[in-house]
């Protein structure tokens, strides 16, 4: 039973490697390729079911490098759900490669799962880097120039992160997260500790495409395929946020070393994300900035350095992962600017509904998943007395909501344009993608309406990190 908890990771990694090999060695006949996305979706859902069934068992693996606790259970389940739904909704004719398009999100998922279960700094870093690397591969399929930019920027972020983690290790004398926390209980905030934490937060902010650290992430997401954009905006950002939550939990005994800087980062991301979304017109760019704004809310929850705040951040992270990963994917080919989605509500109602809900959820509109997460973070901010940050977050949400409504207007209120003026083809309808779009809508709506058990699990997750 103990090793059963590793089955989801094993399934995801094995299927990813198998698909890469199958694509390279032509193991799968062209006729059978059509059903491959459905088969992989089923595998991911099986992994999710296994995680929910067996993941409740608390255990450690590989000498403490991986820890299965409630936090890992929540984060892994959320990411598996996001990827499963994304595979179901994506328009595969709009992707550059079926095999790489399936394998890279699976590897990114594996990376997030490793980061979520990480017991030490090495596993945290490895999981995040794996997820970030898959993003580069996905972007490279369509836009090698943007992939290079993403690679260089990601490399700088990794260098900052690695330097920060190394200094942190040097300061506390251990890489084990639990031990770091115990050591810091008797520690005092020093510059030697604050500088590495500053570097780590900078590195994570770049990976999470937080405004104003969106140098490469958002442009790369604009050039990538729909699923590639979902991977960069959703999965990589979720990996960075997962690492941030685990690190902040370890550092909570001395919040002075990170809270001020994190507060500034969160404020800039929330307001900047909303303002950025309002400033751009392209739906893909808009969803990228909305995602950046919401990840700012996740960061704001960490500022509270209390269990309720971290639980709220974790809860919001689940909603964010689903919406940010599936949002670009559900849009399909309709990524050529505002005319591409004109009248989509009439032409592709299920996809339009999915895209609309993704945007509204990322904007924090009630009563969708993102709103519940942001509200929970807001409650935690109020409890901890961060009313200034709360006000800025609300400002960012209002800006985001205005931006999201701008796209909704184009989709539902404008009449459909003819093919030539549209600029890109409409998403291809398949049985799987129509079902996926419906399932996505249900997940986004139900996440908030049935948020009681989900937030309860997130709370247990935060408790598992040692927070009270």
């Amino acid at each position: 039973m103990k090793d059963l908890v590793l089955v989801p990771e094993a399934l995801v990694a094995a299927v990813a490697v198998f698909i890469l090999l199958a694509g390279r060695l032509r193991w799968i006949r062209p006729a059978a390729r059509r059903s491959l996305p459905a088969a992989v979706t089923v595998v991911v859902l099986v992994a999710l079911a296994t995680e929910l069934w067996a993941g409740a068992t608390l255990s450690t693996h590989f000498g403490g490098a991986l820890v299965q606790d409630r936090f890992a259970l929540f984060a892994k389940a959320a990411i598996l759900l996001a990827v499963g739904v994304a595979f179901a909704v994506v328009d595969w004719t709009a992707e550059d490669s079926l095999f790489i398009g399936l394998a890279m999100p699976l590897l990114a998922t594996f990376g997030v799962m490793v980061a979520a279960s990480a017991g030490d700094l090495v596993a945290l870093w490895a999981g995040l880097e794996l997820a970030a690397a898959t993003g580069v591969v996905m972007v490279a399929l369509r836009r090698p120039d943007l992939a290079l930019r993403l690679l260089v920027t990601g490399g700088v972020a990794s260098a900052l992160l690695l330097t920060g983690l190394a200094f942190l290790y040097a300061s506390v004398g251990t890489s084990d997260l639990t031990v770091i926390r115990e050591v810091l209980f008797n520690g005092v905030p020093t510059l030697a500790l604050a500088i590495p934490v500053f570097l780590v937060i900078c590195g994570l902010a770049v990976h999470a495409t937080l405004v104003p650290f969106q140098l490469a992430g958002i442009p790369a997401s604009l050039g990538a395929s729909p699923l590639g954009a979902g991977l960069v905006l959703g999965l990589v950002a979720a990996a960075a946020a997962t690492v941030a939550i685990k690190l902040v939990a370890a550092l909570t005994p001395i919040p002075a070393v990170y809270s001020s800087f994190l507060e500034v980062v969160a404020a800039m991301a929330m307001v900047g994300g909303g303002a950025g979304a309002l400033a751009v017109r392209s739906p893909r760019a808009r969803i990228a900035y909305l995602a950046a704004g919401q990840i700012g809310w996740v960061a704001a929850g960490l500022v509270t350095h209390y269990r309720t705040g971290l639980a709220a951040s974790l809860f919001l992270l689940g909603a964010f992962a689903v919406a940010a990963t599936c949002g670009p994917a559900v849009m399909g080919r309709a990524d050529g600017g505002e005319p591409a989605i004109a009248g989509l509500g009439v032409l592709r109602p299920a996809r339009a509904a999915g895209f609309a809900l993704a945007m509204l959820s990322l904007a924090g509109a009630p009563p969708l998943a993102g709103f519940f997460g942001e509200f929970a973070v807001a409650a935690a901010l109020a409890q901890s007395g961060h009313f200034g940050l709360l006000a800025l977050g609300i400002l960012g949400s209002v800006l985001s909501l205005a931006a999201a409504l701008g796209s909704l207007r184009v989709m539902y209120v404008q009449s459909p344009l003819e093919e030539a003026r549209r600029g890109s083809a409409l998403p291809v309808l398949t049985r799987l993608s129509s079902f996926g779009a419906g399932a996505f809508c249900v997940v986004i709506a139900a996440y908030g309406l049935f948020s009681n058990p989900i937030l309860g699990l997130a709370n247990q997750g935060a408790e598992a990190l040692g927070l009270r």
Partner: protein
Amino acid sequence: MIWQAIAAASPTPTPVTVPGAGIFSSPLLLSLTIWVPIAFAIAIAIMPNPRGRYDVLMKQIAFFTNLGVLFVLFIAYNQFQTFLPTMQYEEKVPWLPVIGATYHLGVDGPGMTMLVLSGAIGIVSVLASLGIRERVRSYFCLLLLAQATVNGAIVARDMFVLIVFWGAAAIPLALLILGWGGPRRHHAAWRLLGYWGLGTGALVIGAMTLYAVTGGASFDMDVLLKAAISPRVQLAIGLLMIVAAATRLPLFPLHGWARDVYAEAPVGVTVIVAGSASRLGAYLLLRSLVAAEPAAAHLLSPLLAALAALTVGYAALVALRTVDLRQTAAHLAMVPGGITVLALAALSPLAIGGAVLSFFAGGLAAALIVGACATLSDRAQSRSLQVLSGLAPRMPVLTWLLIISAFAVLGVPVLATFPAELMTFFGSLKTQPIGAFLVAAGLAVAAVALATVLRRVLFGAANPDAPGVSDASLGETWYLALLAGGLMWVGVFPGGPKLPGTDTPLFDPGLVNVMSAGISDIASPYTGPNPVTGQ
């Protein structure tokens, strides 16, 4: 005699158990008013509609959904117990126990009044929208969602639920304006979003402050609004609630959306915004300031009175100078809101009774004036007061309805706004004499503005260069007549309509008693009757 009886605020006899009460009851009565419109909105959204074949069916679905909700409200009203000092039809289900949020619904007297108003406005807004020809599915889907959010905000007994519906209301309304509004619809929609977003932000921060100072355990209004908190914190929360209410009602200087929205939104949307959605601002003030934060209410009552006077005065003066009929109506629709706020500022039992009556009467009056002017503009093919002239002989129905709407804004006897204004002024002359005088002066200016508009548009010399005009259609006559009829009914029977088989008037002072129960100096002198004697 009628108003003397109102001014005395004398108790009415006990509503004894009547035949019919309790026959139909549901533990989900209030939920039905929220989720039935949402369910039918989803049904409309996913219903196949090839080439608009089922457009009429969708209109019928929207109409009968609202009629069904009104029937549910009829039952709720019929079974409402006026003398209970607690919320009624309560529903309480844990929603987010980790942060203390519950799905808690309930109504008291003012809530019931607002619900009845919302139900009536729902029907009226569908009737006013029968002329919609483009994208019928999206329109009625959004209209039903807007209706549901307003109902949700009224019955919310948990700040979390209130914020959900309060915030969500802006989304369908903004989309309706963007999709079906006039030439300046973009401007109107973004202004609505901006101002209402600001108000929602203030409400969230106010609710979060309350949450934090009460221990961060619950968002339930029973906890937040009954907690003993320091006057300084009360003042901060009170100011935030005033900002939230001022953006919604609207009150000067946070009224920036009103002119564009009332002038550019389609008629059905204008009616719902002016009639029920904007009344939520006054309802919030009553709920979260007057009846919850006594120290802040006393400290801020002069500010409220000043805002009321500024709103009425500003609206009347601008209406006097505007040359666009719909913009004139937009400004005049702000007048009832100002009077409601004066009533709340007075902090006297009589004035608060007037405020509750004013929710209903003011909502109907505001909806009627903007609806009548919008319909008249559509039918006359012009909004310019320089073009519209001498229309009375050619549109007799609309002429009568416009005159009634003008009288309703001014509070002329026989209309529901009259007892509301009478109670307001009688109740506020002692506690807010300057505010009451200034509001009355503003009302006089509004009368001049209305007289000027009526004289020019209806009774002036006919303009030979004006486009052709036609009188109101059957649907338009119905929706305006329903609003006018509601105003007259409550105006003639200020205690409110009595339902067959019951002896419960709609605006029994006992309704208000619940609201003021916690605050001794504004508590109604009204006392519960002796259960034995019934006296």
